[in-house]
């Protein structure tokens, strides 16, 4: 009975009317921006970047309008389906192009367009002197459009289009400076890793069609919630979707591309890590929750991957001196938290999204802060060359500081509210697994506090360690204003969203009811105090080690094996290379050799053996047409003969 109710609930999306008919504008405007800038060429150099910002901003305004329109509707009719056109109709396989605006996607729309627009504005200053500025803004707009399609698509196939276009956008932006060879390598790596994940997602979509006969959310979720799919199918779907999510969100074992993606300009990093791209995996799992609800096995794997990645990111984050790399690994780890949350099932879906939104603010803020520092320091990223910057860059210091306080979970800033909740539900899972997950999440919080303190202190405090010919200065207004807005968001967004469980209530019709009060393994107050204690320990560790003792300008080489391993990304890249890349190269070389000498050689030898091909070739050079005519004639004779035989017979 509950299954039936669930089925009817998700199967009814209201048709778009009134202002909701304009949902498509959300993604078409930035797409238009990208098209105009790319096709317009040099003619748009003068005003193109403003146009791109206008498109992003307009999309945000529409997003806000639609959000409030949605809010004005009754709680159970907030899922609006906008049918656009019939996309791929082949008999039983009918896919429509359509958009679904509901509580979940509207929240993402606000995050993507809001933070996205701020990053656009920031880039105005950051990319002011770059000769490729027009192209940069075009790609930014394309990125927004792709991500909006990803979250707004009303079927898995529409989502997949956005999904891969996000991959394309990141590819273009990571190698934005095409003259840099490492950038091209990093971009390729990102695309390949993403494609591996995409294999999972596309097989999942095929499996949906083979079992449900459709790829649209309502049909698939209806079947999943209605008990029409076997356990094995649900588990298979869950794991395949997870593979896709891992690729896009940089989760273990497909995390390798994310830190390398730092080759792109810093605003791109902010965009990838906060508003778009890496959040897609979390979105996918939350969106496909009826599938994960039906499969404990799939959820368990999600949780395990979340925890492994969470610790993996923290450990490596402690070892790097490159400010962007540290932030990148902190993303890997924070997304791990979100995976952990959504893997816990209905208790955690909303919490995962909650942390995602909070993270969107503080991570964008942190990256823009890092960009501001790099801008001032001639694109240096080595924090050992920074130090004492708080005096010369007060705004950047304060803004980045707020982001720092938010990510380590210092009350009353964002992370405190959202991360605490995840640790809480992990413990609430109960049993050994709950204790293990909770402890890992707790440990991660401590490590996060340590490495973030380390990098923050190395950058802004302590001795000046930069070269005397650098004259760092505060960045211009177009860069600081977005930073300030994001800093305010970092500070308060988490608290606001948690206050009165507003976000959880908003999302409840989509993802189900989140953690119920009252069934706690450990009392929330005790747990909060414990978490704060661990965080304080991490901060103290970072403070004593990097504030009170001098920081060497060159990274020490006499280090523990763990540090060495962490500096080598825990040997994951080496493993990829040894297991896939080298054997792959060997295989292609071998095949090329075999194809030239084996298959082709065999054919040639055969021909030479029979008729002396090479000799004949020489002769045919002069008279080949004749022999061709002869063979045609021969063929005709054969036909005629055969026909005659038949006649006679």
């Amino acid at each position: 009975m509950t299954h039936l109710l669930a089925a009817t609930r998700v199967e009814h999306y209201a048709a778009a009317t009134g202002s909701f008919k304009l949902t498509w504008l959300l993604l078409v405007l930035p797409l238009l921006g990208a098209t105009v800038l790319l096709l317009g060429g040099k003619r748009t150099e003068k005003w193109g970047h403003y146009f791109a910002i206008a498109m992003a901003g307009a999309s945000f305004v529409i997003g806000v309008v639609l959000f409030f329109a949605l809010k004005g509707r009754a709680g159970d009719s907030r899922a609006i389906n906008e049918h656009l056109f019939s996309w791929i109709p082949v008999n039983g396989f009918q896919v429509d192009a359509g958009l679904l605006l509901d509580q979940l996607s509207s929240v993402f729309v606000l995050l993507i367009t809001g933070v996205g627009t701020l990053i656009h504005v920031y880039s105005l200053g950051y990319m002011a002197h770059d000769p490729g500025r027009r192209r940069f803004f075009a790609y930014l707009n394309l990125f927004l459009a792709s991500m909006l399609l990803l979250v707004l698509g009303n079927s898995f196939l529409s989502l997949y289009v956005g999904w891969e276009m996000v991959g394309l956008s990141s590819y273009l932006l990571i190698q934005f400076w095409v003259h840099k060879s490492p950038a091209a390598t990093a971009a390729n790596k990102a695309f390949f890793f993403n494609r591996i994940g995409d294999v999972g997602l596309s097989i999942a979509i095929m499996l949906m069609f083979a079992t449900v006969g459709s790829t649209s959310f309502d049909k698939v979720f209806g079947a999943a919630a209605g008990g029409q799919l076997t356990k094995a199918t649900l588990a298979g779907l869950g794991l395949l979707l997870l593979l896709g999510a891992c690729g896009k969100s940089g989760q273990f074992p497909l995390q390798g591309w994310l830190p390398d993606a730092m080759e792109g300009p810093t605003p791109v990093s902010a965009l990838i890590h906060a508003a778009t791209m890496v959040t897609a995996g979390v979105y996918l799992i939350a969106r496909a929750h009826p599938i994960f609800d039906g499969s404990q096995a799939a959820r368990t794997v999600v949780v395990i991957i979340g925890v492994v990645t969470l610790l993996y990111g923290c450990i490596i984050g402690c070892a790097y001196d490159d400010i962007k790399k540290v932030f990148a690994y902190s993303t890997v780890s924070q997304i791990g938290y979100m995976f952990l949350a959504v893997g816990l099932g209905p208790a955690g879906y909303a919490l995962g999204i909650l942390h995602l939104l909070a993270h969107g603010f503080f991570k964008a803020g942190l990256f823009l802060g890092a960009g501001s520092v790099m801008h001032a320091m001639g694109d240096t990223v080595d924090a050992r060359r920074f130090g004492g910057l708080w005096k010369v860059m007060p705004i950047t210091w304060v803004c980045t500081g707020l982001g720092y306080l938010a990510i380590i979970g210092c009350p009353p800033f964002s992370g405190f509210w959202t991360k605490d909740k995840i640790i809480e539900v992990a413990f609430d899972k109960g049993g050994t697994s709950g204790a293990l997950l909770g402890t890992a999440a707790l440990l991660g919080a401590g490590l996060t506090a340590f490495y973030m303190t380390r990098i923050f202190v190395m950058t802004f405090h302590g001795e000046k360690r930069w070269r005397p010919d650098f004259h760092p200065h505060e960045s211009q207004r177009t860069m600081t204003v977005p930073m300030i807005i994001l800093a305010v968001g970092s500070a308060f967004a988490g608290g606001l969203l948690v206050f009165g469980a507003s976000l959880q209530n908003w999302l409840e019709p989509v993802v189900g009811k989140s953690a119920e009060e009252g069934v706690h393994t450990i009392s929330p107050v005790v747990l909060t105090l414990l978490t704060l204690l661990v965080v304080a320990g991490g901060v103290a560790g970072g403070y004593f080690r990097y504030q009170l003792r001098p920081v060497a300008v060159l990274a020490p080489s006499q280090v523990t094996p763990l540090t060495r391993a962490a500096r080598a990304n825990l040997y994951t890249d080496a493993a990829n290379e040894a297991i896939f890349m080298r054997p792959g190269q060997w295989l292609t070389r071998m095949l090329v050799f075999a194809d030239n000498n084996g298959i082709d050689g065999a054919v040639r030898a055969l021909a030479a053996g029979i008729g002396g091909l090479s000799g004949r070739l020489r002769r045919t050079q002069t008279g080949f047409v004749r022999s061709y005519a002869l063979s045609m004639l021969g063929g005709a004779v054969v036909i005629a003969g055969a026909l005659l035989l038949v006649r006679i017979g």
Partner: protein
Amino acid sequence: MPWLTILLIIPAVGSLFVALIPKTNPHLAKQTALFVSLVELALTIAMIIDFDNKKTGYQFFQRYDWIKAFGVHYEVGVDGIALVLIGLAALLVPVVLIASWNEVDDLAMTGRRSVRGYFSLILALQTGMVGVFASLDVFLFYVFFEAILIPMYFIIGSYGGPQRAYASVKFLLYSLFGGLIMLAAVIGLFVVSTKHGSGTFDFVTLRGMPISDGVEKLLFLGFFLAFAIKAPLFPFHTWLPDAGAEAPIGGAVLLVGVLDKIGTFGLIRYCIPLFPDASRYFAPLVLALAVVGIFYGALLAIGQRDMKRLVSYTSLAHFGFIALGTYALTTQGGTGAVLYMVNHGLSTGALFLCVGFLIARRGTRDVDGYRGMFQVTPKLGGVMLIAGLSALSLPGLSTFVSEFLVLVGTFTRYRALAIVATVGIVLSSIYVLYLIQRTLTGPRPAWATVGGEGPAPFHGDEGDLAYAAAPAELGVAAGVHGPGDPDLSMPEPVTPGGVRRRGAVRDLSLREAIAIAPLLGLIVVFGVYPKPILDIIRPAVTATLQDIQHPAGDPVPTAVLTGAHK
């Protein structure tokens, strides 16, 4: 309107006419050829508009007795499958003519080859292409199938790269071999038909004719082998990289874009309806070859240094997808496969053109001779990137629609195969992006500095891929070029008609842009809104598969089945 006969005659007459234009006036030959191809394109578009996709059966049908005694007819007509392929050919011919406007000028300067010859051959090729797709008489089909080899042989052999002689003969021998086997099968088919009344080659009559089991399998193999060589499928592919690499760019586009489609077209048009039982029997074999081809072609493409060979090998992988969709025997797979044929022509055609544009600027096929072309020719780089993305089937582009239909259509019947084939999308991203990385990204190359002396011909590390390479390398072709026989396709650093005349390397020219724009435009349009073309293809595929699917039809979603049991 007898559209098909008109479309057959126009390029044939045009070809003759162009061949008769005096050698001294190459420009007139070019213009005439282009004009003829544009008329052909306009008429083809008119025919497509006239085509009624609600009607079943063959349209614009015409039948006249040809050799009455043997039941040979001049019989033409099209269904949706043939229609889109004729449309593809009609589009690609003017594109190729514009793109290779100056390609053979250097050759013609030597006086041994003529411009009019090249343009006349391409028009002759077009007649053959229309004929192959429009034939409804198996014998007529065979005649066009063989006749089309001749112009292509001359295009490769006379206007190709340094090893053109070797490549063209190899192409011809392979095709002739396949053709002869098919001829035997065609005759066999006739023999069988004599047992059911008067003997005939009429496809409409032959279709659905009962054939005894063993004979059906033999005849199937005869047709299949010819098509598998033509397409080509693994392991019958070794002529393709040579032909694709040595053919002039225009020839390569038509070879891979249209001529190879005759093989895949034959699989769905002839093999399945004529031999339904044998098709079912051999389906696992075809599917296995298809999947092996997907991986084999992709891996070899990754390993190539010669850009034209690289693109040829990607086609091998794509033909694997087409064969997979065709022999999955579902309407999704079949429709995807036919759309794939069209898309492959557009996308590989575009990629070949881009590679050709690069070669025109640098004079080598070796990928290592480039690097950093984004810095030198940003527009060409962007265009090549889009062509590459369509080759890796990026969603939003039409290639994705066809590839996904093939995969999903296969999945409903052969899950394991579809899953394995899907891994191929990782490999396709590798060969495309690796090519992009090696040619387009990186620092600005020293040879292309503005105000410099212009590009010198490239001699690679080993020199084996540069045009200047010795043609004798493969041994077989030794003796092709006697002493005093200049290597005609070796580009001079400064040529009269080419883009290299100016000091610095030029970005995409207007002519090049006009040539490639329609291809990329259609790739985007059909990616976003493929419904019009699917509506043409789908009914034809559904009708083709009707007999062989009987009585099962497409597999039914499993969840619905369990739901029904409850």
